[in-house]
């Protein structure tokens, strides 16, 4: 479990970038942080895995404050995927890249190699390929794989889909969703509200260093007052379903946010029409 207790942090000891954050993320949750650039989302992610220490308050990972954990201990508990995979990739082959984390954390290679091989197979990589010659989407997948291979109980993703096309984005997010199904806690920052609606279970909206909303995805995305305060637009599907509440009230009861619900909406409208005709 990750717990923020009245956490503030700043980069220059003067202006706080996040101010008085308090929330809990229990094991197995899938949380998306949303808000405009500069709202403090990325800073919050850095606080989660101890890259940044709070100037006041406490960040607890399973009850232990991040300030009293060593870098390698933190890395074992929380995996962190950066927005730009090129910041992270630094080895000459895909295989070395996947091994890098084990070496850094001092894990025995006999234990590491089977896991690396499993990853190569699962993601469909060429183990001997040079990472920098891969295309952007594959590099992002490699960066993700090199985190996942360490099997951290929690992964933090800073805008995992920026710069990816639709297909790559779906591939990355489906993998993350699989990890979540297998019990990994997922915390992500994401600007793409469609992705948030499709995948996240809970949404925390931030604006100007503060949390303005925290709740199940659909509740937050349907709350127009919160969205306005955080300068956000709801996913198109949610927006349409809300604007059709009068005509198709049943849309309002089901939690419509993600792509799967397109079918639901289609059916709901079709059955209404059929009823009218009859």
């Amino acid at each position, binding site marked *: 479990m990750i717990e923020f207790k009245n956490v503030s942090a700043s980069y*220059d000891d003067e202006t706080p970038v996040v101010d008085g954050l308090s929330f809990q993320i229990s094991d197995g949750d899938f949380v998306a942080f949303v808000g405009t650039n500069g709202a403090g989302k990325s800073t919050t992610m*850095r606080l989660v*895995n101890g*890259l940044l220490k709070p100037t006041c308050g406490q960040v607890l990972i399973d009850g232990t404050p991040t300030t009293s954990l*060593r*870098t*390698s201990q*933190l*890395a*074992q508990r*929380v*995996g*962190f995927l*950066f927005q*730009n995979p*090129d*910041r*992270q*990739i*630094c*080895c*000459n082959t895909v295989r070395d890249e996947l091994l*890098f*984390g084990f070496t*850094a*954390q001092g894990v025995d290679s006999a234990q590491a190699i089977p896991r690396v091989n499993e990853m190569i197979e699962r993601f469909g990589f060429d183990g001997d390929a040079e990472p*920098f010659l891969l295309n952007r989407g594959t590099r992002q997948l490699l960066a993700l794989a*090199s*985190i996942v291979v*360490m099997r951290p109980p929690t992964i933090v993703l800073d805008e995992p889909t920026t710069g990816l096309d639709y297909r790559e984005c779906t591939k990355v997010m489906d993998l993350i969703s699989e990890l979540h199904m297998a019990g990994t806690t997922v915390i992500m920052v994401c600007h793409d509200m469609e992705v948030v609606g499709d995948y996240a279970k809970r949404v925390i909206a931030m604006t100007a260093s503060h949390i303005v909303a925290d709740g199940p995805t659909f509740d937050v995305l349907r709350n127009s007052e919160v969205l306005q305060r955080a300068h956000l637009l709801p996913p198109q599907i949610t927006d349409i379903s809300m604007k059709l509440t009068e005509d198709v009230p049943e849309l309002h009861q089901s939690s419509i946010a993600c792509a799967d619900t397109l079918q639901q909406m289609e059916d709901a409208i079709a059955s209404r029409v059929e009823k009218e005709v009859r």
Partner: protein
Amino acid sequence: MAKFLEYVPGDSLMHRMNPVAKVLCALLISIACFCTSNLVFLCAVLAIDFALAASCHMTKQALGLAKAVAIFSIILALIALLTTSTGTQLVALPWGYIGTGSILAAITVVIRLVACAVPLFLVMYVTQLNDLANSFCKILHVPYKYAFTFTSAVHFIPVFMNDMSQIMQAQTARGVEFDCGFVKKIRLMAPLCVPLLISSVRKTNSAAIAAEVRGFNLRTRDSGFKEYPFTLVDVVCILACALLIVVAVALNVVLPGGTIFMNLLASF
């Protein structure tokens, strides 16, 4: 919070002076420091330095700089201490002795370097890089290509430093412990040069193209929109600094204590 040697906005006299004049004045002050070993004179120059720094609200930065230069010059001071055997003997050495004169010589080295370095660095704090490059092109007829190379290089330093710190953060997140001894840290950082290099090659390449599609090749000495005329203040300042050299040289003639040439030798 301003970073090292980065322009700090302001409206002081030094901010408003002609960039070329600023650089010239700083150089003249530096030369003056090397023209004499008179400790009183050097201390006076140091005092002038800090008065200038105070005039443009840069005292904090100047103190930081002075400290850095002083630490750096300690090595030179040690050499001076061990090799100048003058004055009353204090400690005997196999090749001579450390005397009161040696201590004075060591102090002189430190003060001279600090006094001559501070104005040069101050110029960087009170001058926009663009103004510096443009005025050098306009007044001193430095070819624009060189000026651009210089400004881009300086411009890219913070960009690369930012890149490096992000790369290190990404590796820290994977469990690499950079908070260790110096040698080990260097060893850990070495492989990170690959991503840094790749991002720098990409960046410089796209920067070159971006400059070219904005007419880089058309730029001439007269292209600059801003003019950099010499004002009365600039001329007065240059003359004042030149006067410092005259004073320094005169001190050498009036007071005993080595020629310019010997001082230069001693200071290196």
